[in-house]
């Protein structure tokens, strides 16, 4: 039995230690905001935050996630997250939307560290999040817009 803190709640799960956090969230806890895309940390769809840092949940073993504050798209909060969500809607970023929870988790963490990111900062923080609909240039614009929103 592993105890995880997910979205502010203590949750107990009966899985093998090496089970990736992604499958614990999705299959055991029915938290489906984090998506399966590749299983090898090559697409970013499964991105969640662990103690505020974006991690790929498909490459984080359940046992290693114990003791961390895990936050998924469903419970993300704070001024960066609000600004990202507002900018995403304002610029109508999503197409199919599948990768967007991962995109937004990465983008929120970027703004927390770098409130006024350059295009280079955005490339460095976001290149690991693939989008087959290819919403990239709206993602870039929305991150800049979110930075503006945060400035008020």
């Amino acid at each position, binding site marked *: 039995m592993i105890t995880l803190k997910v979205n502010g709640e203590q949750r107990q799960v009966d*899985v*093998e230690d090496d*089970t*990736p956090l992604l*499958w*614990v969230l*999705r*299959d*055991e806890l*029915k938290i*489906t*905001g984090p*998506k*399966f*895309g*590749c*299983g*090898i940390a*090559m*697409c970013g*769809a499964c991105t969640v935050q662990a103690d505020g840092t974006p991690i790929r949940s498909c490459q984080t073993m359940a046992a290693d996630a114990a003791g961390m504050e895990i936050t*998924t*798209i*469903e419970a*993300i909060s704070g001024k960066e997250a609000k600004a*990202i*969500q507002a900018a*995403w*809607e304002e610029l*109508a970023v*999503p*197409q*199919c*939307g*599948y*990768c*967007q*929870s991962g995109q*937004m988790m990465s983008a929120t963490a970027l703004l927390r560290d770098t409130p006024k990111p350059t*295009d280079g900062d*955005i*490339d*460095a923080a*976001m*290149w*690991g*999040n*693939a*989008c*087959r*609909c*290819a*919403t*990239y*240039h*709206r*993602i*870039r614009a929305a991150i800049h817009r979110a930075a503006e929103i945060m400035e008020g």
Partner: protein
Amino acid sequence: MTGSTGLTNGGLTTGGLTNVSRRSVLLGLAAGTFVLATRPRLSFGQDKVYGADAMPGGVKDDPRIFLSIADDGEVTLLCNRAEMGQGIRTSWAMVVADELEADLARCTVRQAPGDEARYGNQNTDGSRSMRHHFMPLRRIGAAARQMLEAEAAARWDVPVAELRTDSHEVVHAASGRRIGFGALARGAAERPVPAETALALKTPDRFRYIGKAALPLVDNHDITTGKPVYGIDAQVDGMAFAVVARPPVYGGKVKRYDATEALKVPGVLKVVPIAAPGIPSVFAPLGGLGVVAENTFAAIKGRSMLEIEWEDGPNAGYDSASYRDTLQSAAEKPGKVVRNDGDVDAGLAGAARRVTASYYLPHLAQAPMEPPTATARVSADSCEIWCSVQNPQAIRNDLSQRLGLPAEKVTVNTMLLGGGFGRKSKPDFASEAAILSRAMDGRPVKLTFTREDDIRNGFLHTVSVERLEAGLDETGKPVAWLHRTVAPTIQSLFAPGAEHEGGFELGMGAVDMPFAIPNVRVENPAAEAHTRIGWFRAVSNVPHAFAVQSFAAELADAAGRDQKDCLLELLGPDRKIAASALSDPWLYGEDPEKYPFDTGRLRAVIETAAREAGWGRDLPAGHGLGIAAHRSFLSYAAVVVEAAVSDSGELSIPRVDIAFDCGAVVNPDRVRSQLEGAVVFGVSLATTGEISFAEGRVEQSNFHDYEVTRIDTAPRRIHTHLVSPTGFDAPLGGVGEPGLPPVAPALANAIFAACGKRIRSLPIRDQLA
């Protein structure tokens, strides 16, 4: 109704799987108790039907099927097309709400289940959802509005002509009376649906939503808060989780296996043999061994512990390097003539100069971010399935036959698709889920393709060699054009021994080549398929446009002329070319009278893209502009790419301009977003996209070796330019696919302008180093 941000999406979020209604009753125009006859289509004396009317299941435009109005006025619309990012759920509602004079913020969109007899055609492919349904949706909205008005007129005892409808209310201006939709709904539902000839459609100048930008998207708020339910998110009580070990070679099967170790993995419940189909396999599962477990990871782990000996079958020798030689050899010899104007042999023989080039495009995988996945619950007398599919009705038919159940006992719930690009119109994965649930004695099973499964068990984009030869006169003007297109056909999926491209493939840019050249011959030598070939965004337009538009630029280079000027000259004077004159009997299934090849429209997008991109402007060293244009899916697209090639051969793309004419534009922002996506999708396939085979097996497995374009390698700026010269008088063209074909050739042409290197083989990868 939830909140004031606009349109909501009822069906797919919290309502989720038990998606009946958030209200206990749905009143008004709800269709539950009606037995509906399809309104006969007007025939206009035609023998042949086209467009939506020619599709399986046809068109349904009865408002009682698609629309309900509750007592509180809430309008619920059923969307009959799958949403995979193209925005159809939003556009669908915009059109109905406009004619209905409903307030879009009081409309909820739900997804229709798979039932073609009831809802009409459900194939979400071919860039035709809005093209086929714009008018039926308008009729649905208008008919319902007129039923509401008739009810108000009867209640108030006034002539219906004195009423108008505005923003969810029927208004009698003379007496100042107003009444909401909710109050009228029950009575209106009892009234007859007006005949098509009695419908008063709005004039386009009165559209409130159609053609307007900046409307909220139906699913966006949910997406930004992690709520939408994609196929992979389906939750069914008690479900188990599964993956399948499939034969690595198309046509292979399990020779023997040992599941002992797999079954020892904690959580693994069962290993289920799945029969291999013959070749061609159509949409059937490939066979192999299903591993069912208590969670997906246990299933994956169990699968890795299976000991399997495969029998590879007839495609064990499929090797992409040697197959490329096979295609090239075929392209060097005459093949089946599929278009023949004038006398190409004489034209070539008499030419002052001949130019020849061959282009190679490899297999590609659609690789939607959500891999194929389905959740099925199969009992002795029924089946229910939840999945991300482009054609739910095909699954219903397949499962009905496979399980021996009447169609009405098979319920197919179409979930949101995490991308499709053609992969999810081949529902092998849904069949697998049903097979596994049945093997689990009815326990629900969620079947997931891992990314490796997706890359290795695709319905791949074809592989092709396109050989072009032209004869030029003394001035450099082309007088003869010979195109040999060699590629395994999608028909090989259905028909044994199919080796020639079908009309639907040749009509994607090979025969329907519009250049004003007196002698044109298109040939299609045979090519044998050794893997499953399927539809991929824009399909055969991708190789055909790459070859034709690259070659057009090569002819300009040969003549020492400007690419754009030459392209416009090749196009010739503005004219409308009948499909028959292009030897194209297919024309995307549309009416040739309605959709001639209008070279003036192609010219207009070329000129727009060139003007907006600053064609001819001064560029930094190592930068170049390239142009390409192509008509597909009845729409016209032109792309100008600015490419930059560094001294070390590194490619970057500072800017892309795309000009687009799809006729009437319903949802401008979603048209733009589709074009933006098409540009990057095109860059991705041109720069890194390749699926290759060795010993019959796909060599790639995941995003590390099947690379897709990321934010840092995507074009830095994309400018979309919508050209709609005739507004709503123009018949609609497609949107989702036609932006793609001109991207790769425009990039190749830009690279040539930037550094003098001609790209004739995709992907570009390290060819510039």
